[in-house]
């Protein structure tokens, strides 16, 4: 069995008096396709905010690749190999699409390399996303799905060991969902560990090797997609009947 790439140990997060995460403990193994589900407001985004460093957890510890992330800034975590997408896309709107990709390439994965190489690299990522012909366009003209793809492409450009995708498929049609799922699976096959947060069950279950479910900030179930789908708690809190 592969090593645990990410260890989340009793992570707690409060907003004022409200507890968004309470002692969440889990592990993600290297190379794994990992699903994170849970009802709205259960703390999924909060958890990955804590992992990626946009929030600091109030309690517990997060260990990535043997390294304690406590006190580590977000960009250092990115350099260490954790990248996330945002639930609501946040492109660098004053730049072209390819320049959006150049940022993580230049600052993380291809730091110090020549500009031409960086551009080639960015182009090849855009190609895998099917967005190559839009490389030099502004982000303002993009459709929802294109924005989502850009969000993913930019994250992938950082060449993360662990990619966290926060609802990359919300609002996409069935075919488009399949398309994005396939992209993620391809990257996983190249060795990238991926955490997928999604409410589209078809995608999560098809994609994930293992799934955890949060409810009201607590971990309520963990297991293979099959087990999760049959779990009574998950059904009650999340899936409905």
């Amino acid at each position, binding site marked *: 069995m592969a090593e645990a790439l990410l260890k989340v140990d009793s992570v707690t997060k409060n*907003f004022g008096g409200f507890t968004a995460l309470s002692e969440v403990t889990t592990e993600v193994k290297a190379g794994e396709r990992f699903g994170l589900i849970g*009802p709205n407001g259960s703390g999924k985004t909060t958890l990955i905010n804590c992992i990626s460093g946009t929030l600091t957890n109030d309690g517990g510890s997060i260990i990535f690749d043997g390294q304690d992330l406590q006190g580590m800034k977000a960009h250092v975590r990115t350099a260490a190999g954790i990248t996330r997408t945002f639930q609501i896309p946040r492109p660098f709107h004053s730049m072209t699409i390819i320049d959006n990709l150049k940022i993580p390439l230049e600052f993380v994965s291809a730091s110090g390399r020549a500009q031409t190489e960086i551009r080639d690299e960015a182009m090849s990522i855009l190609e895998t996303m099917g967005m190559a012909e839009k490389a030099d366009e502004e982000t303002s003209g993009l459709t929802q799905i294109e924005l989502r793809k850009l969000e993913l492409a930019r994250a992938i450009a950082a060449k993360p060991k662990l990619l966290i995708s926060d609802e990359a498929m*919300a609002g996409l049609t*069935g*075919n*488009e969902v399949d398309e994005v799922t396939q992209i993620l699976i391809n990257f996983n096959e190249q060795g990238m560990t991926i955490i997928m947060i999604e*409410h589209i069950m078809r995608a999560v279950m098809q994609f994930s090797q293992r799934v955890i479910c949060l409810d009201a900030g607590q971990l309520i179930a963990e297991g293979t997609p099959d087990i999760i789908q049959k779990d009574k708690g998950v059904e009650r809190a*999340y899936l409905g009947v």
Partner: protein
Amino acid sequence: MAELIIKDLVAGYGNVSVLHNVSLEVEEGSIVALLGTNGNGKSTLMRCVAGLIKPTAGSITFKDEGAEIDLISDSPKQIVDHGIALVPEGRRLFPLLTVEQNLMLGAYRKAARERIDESIEFCFELFPRLAERREQKAGSMSGGEQQMLAVARAMMSVPKLLLIDEPSVGLAPILVAQMIEKIGELSESRNVTILMAEQNFNQAIKIADRGYIIVHGEIAFASKDAQDLADNDMVKSYYLGA
């Protein structure tokens, strides 16, 4: 009781035309689903009805209690005053205002102000989570919570015609079902006419009376009833993963 009739609508952004001769009807008290893959113009159509985009040709007529109102020349404010509300794509909440303040703003139009207490109660009943979080800033709510607030806020204006752009985006499965159910209830209990763009076909079909499929800015298929829609080949290939 309200009815919406769109004829030969042409609209777009700048020089790019997105809708080409779209005609569509939403009958009194019905729920009509608008289907179509991304970027085909569903949101654009809704924006036209709400007055956010000025169409270049065609007509939009709103029939209400015998009156026939031409919406093309009306401002968004006038359109809201007629009793038409839009739940926009991307929610567009006021992130720095609290849940309650967002709701209150929903009742801005004169006709809605009188019924504000009743409306708030209704919304809190519809989405109890909002009642729990009435003092929280909308911007710090989770994605799904924001979606609930967006629908609730539109309801605050006591609309006769409600346009909903993708109500179930980002909702947990259990909530998708609930949300669609609530929309169905809404239409019944409050007698609201509803035009709804929705990607989750399986859910939409549960409440929709009819539907349209829009492809590249043109109506590719107009169904007579729900069954008609479910049987359509395009629907099968887009949504049912055939």
